[in-house]
C-alpha cells in the first residue's frame, strides 16, 4: 500500500473506532435514571 493510502485508512479507522467506542462506553458507564424510566427490563429492580 502507498503511504498516503495507509495514512488515510489508519487515521480514518482509528478516529471512527475510538469515537464509536467512547460513546458506547459512556452509555454503558452512565447510571440508570430513577424510575419510572423508558426501559422495562429494570422495572422490578430495587434501587
Amino acid at each position, binding site marked *: 500500500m502507498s503511504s498516503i493510502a495507509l495514512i488515510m*485508512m489508519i487515521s480514518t479507522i482509528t478516529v*471512527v473506532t475510538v469515537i464509536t467506542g467512547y*460513546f*458506547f462506553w459512556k452509555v*454503558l458507564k*452512565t447510571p440508570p*435514571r430513577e424510575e419510572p424510566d*423508558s426501559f*422495562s427490563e429494570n422495572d422490578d429492580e430495587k434501587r
Partner: protein
Amino acid sequence: MAQQKEAWGSRVGLILAMAGNAVGLGNFLRFPVQAIQNGGGAFIIPYIVCFLLMGIPLLWVEWASGRFGGTRGHHSTPFILDSMDKRKFWKYIGVFGIFTNLAVAAYYCYLESWTLSWVWHTVTRSFAGQSQEEVAGFFGDYVGLNSVEPIIFWIICLVLNTWILSKGLSGGVEKVAKIGMPLLILFGVFLAVMAVSLKAGEHGAINGGSVGLNFLWTPDFSTIWSPKVWLAAAGQIFFTLSVGMGSIQCYASYVRKKDDIALNAMSAGWMNEFVEVVLGAAIIIPISVGYLGVDKVIEMTKSGGLGLGFRTLPFLFEQWGTVLAIICGVFWFGLLFFAGITSSLAMGTPWMGFMTDEFGWSRQKGAWSFGAIVLILGLPTVLFFNQGVFDEYDYWAGTVSLVVFALAEIILFAWVFGMKRGMQEINSGGDIQVPKIFGFVIKWITPILLLGVFLGALITPAGNDWAGALQNGWVLDNGSIIKQITNSGLKEQIAAAQTAGDQALVDTLTEKKLYINASRLLLLAVFGGVAYLVYIAYRKRIKEGRFV
C-alpha cells in the same frame, strides 16, 4: 380492542435497535462503491464533513421530534409533526413517514430474502464447481423467476418480519437487534480479516488484500471540490443513517422526556459509521480486487454493489475450499441478512404505531396488517423485477421521498418549532450537552446541505458534469428527477430501437414503460391511501375531543 403498552427493554437494546435500523445492506454494498467512484480515500473527507454537518444534526432532530411527539401520545410522524405546530398541513407531510416505510419494505424484504436464499445455497453447495459466469447467471435466473423459490424465500422473510413485529419492541425488535448486531459485527470482523490477509498466488488470488485496500483508500485530492463528490457523500450519509424515513421518530417516541437522547443518538449513529467505514470498506473490494484485478472491479462497480455482493462473491469464496467457502458464504450473507432485517423491522413500527394510536388496533393486528400490505405492494417488485418495478420503488420511495421529508422536517424543527425550544428538547435529560454551535448548524447548514442534495438530484447535469454544465449550458441528465418523471431515458432508448428497426426491443421497452408508470400510480395510491387514513384519524380525534 386491547392495546399492549409498548416500551424498550433496555438502553443498550434501544441503541442497538436504532443502529440496526441504520445499518443496512448499503453499508457493505453501496459505501465502498461510492468511495471508489468519488475519489477513493479523499471521499472520506466530504463524507465525514457531511456526517458531522448533516447526519448528526438530523439524528438529533429526529430523536428529539420523536420523543416530543411520544410524550404527547403520538408514535408516528403524521401526528408527531402535527404536535409541533398549529398549522394543519404538517400531518399530511408526516404521511411520508408511513408511506416511505411501507413502500421501501415492499422491495427491501425481497432483497432481504435473497440473502436468506444465498445462505441456503451456500450451505447446500449450489455454487460449488460453478464458473464466475454461472454464479452470475444463477442470480439472473433467480430474479427472472425461473422457479418459485424466490417467492418462497420472500414469503418466509415476510412472515418472519411480521412475526417478530407482532412480539413488540422489547419482545421482538430489540431481541433481534441484541442478537443480530453483535453477530453482524463478529461476521464482519472475520470476513475483513480474511479479506485483508488475502495473499497473491494463494487459492488462485492474483492480488493480495492490500492491493484492494490501496485501490480504495488512495486519495484523489483533485476530486475534493467537485460538487458531484460532495453530493455523493451527502447522499451516502443521508441513506446510511435511515434519516427521512420516520422510523427513528417512531423508535424515539417510546423514550421518556427525562431520559437521554443526545448521547443515544451519537452512540447509534457512530456505531453505523463503524460498520460502514471500518467493516464495509474492508470486505467486498479487497476480495474482489484480489481475484478480479482493479480494472475488472472498476467495470463491475459501475452497476453498483449488488452485482459484486450476489453475483461475484459466492464464486470467490469457492476458491478458498469447501469449509471456508461455506463459513464465509454463511457469514457474508448472514451478515447482510441481519443488516437487512434490523432495518426492515424498523419499517413496520410507524404503521403499527399509527394504527394503535388512532384506531386502537392491537400490536398483532398492526403487525399482520403491515405484512399484508407489504405482501400486496411487494408482489409487483418480485413478479416484474426485470421490468424495472423494483428500481422504481427504490428511486421514488427509497430515495426522493426521504430527501423531501427530511427537508420538510428540519424546516419544521429549526424554523417553525424554533431552535431555542429545539435545543432544549435535544438536551432534555441528556447525558451529554450538545454544543451550542449545533443550533446554528441545524438552522442553517443542514437545511442548505439537504436543499443541495435535493436540487442536485432534481437537476443533475448530463454525465454529472457540474463544471461543464456551468460553462457550456445546462443539459439535464436522464437520471435527474425531472427527466425521470418524463421517462426521457426510456423514450430515447425506444427511439433508438425504432431507428435501428429492432421491433422486439421496442416492444420490451414499451412494456417496461407501462410497468414503470403503473408502479408510480400504485405508489401514489398508497400515499393517497395513508393520507386519507390520516384525515379519518384527524376527524376521529376532533369527534372524540382528543386535540388539546
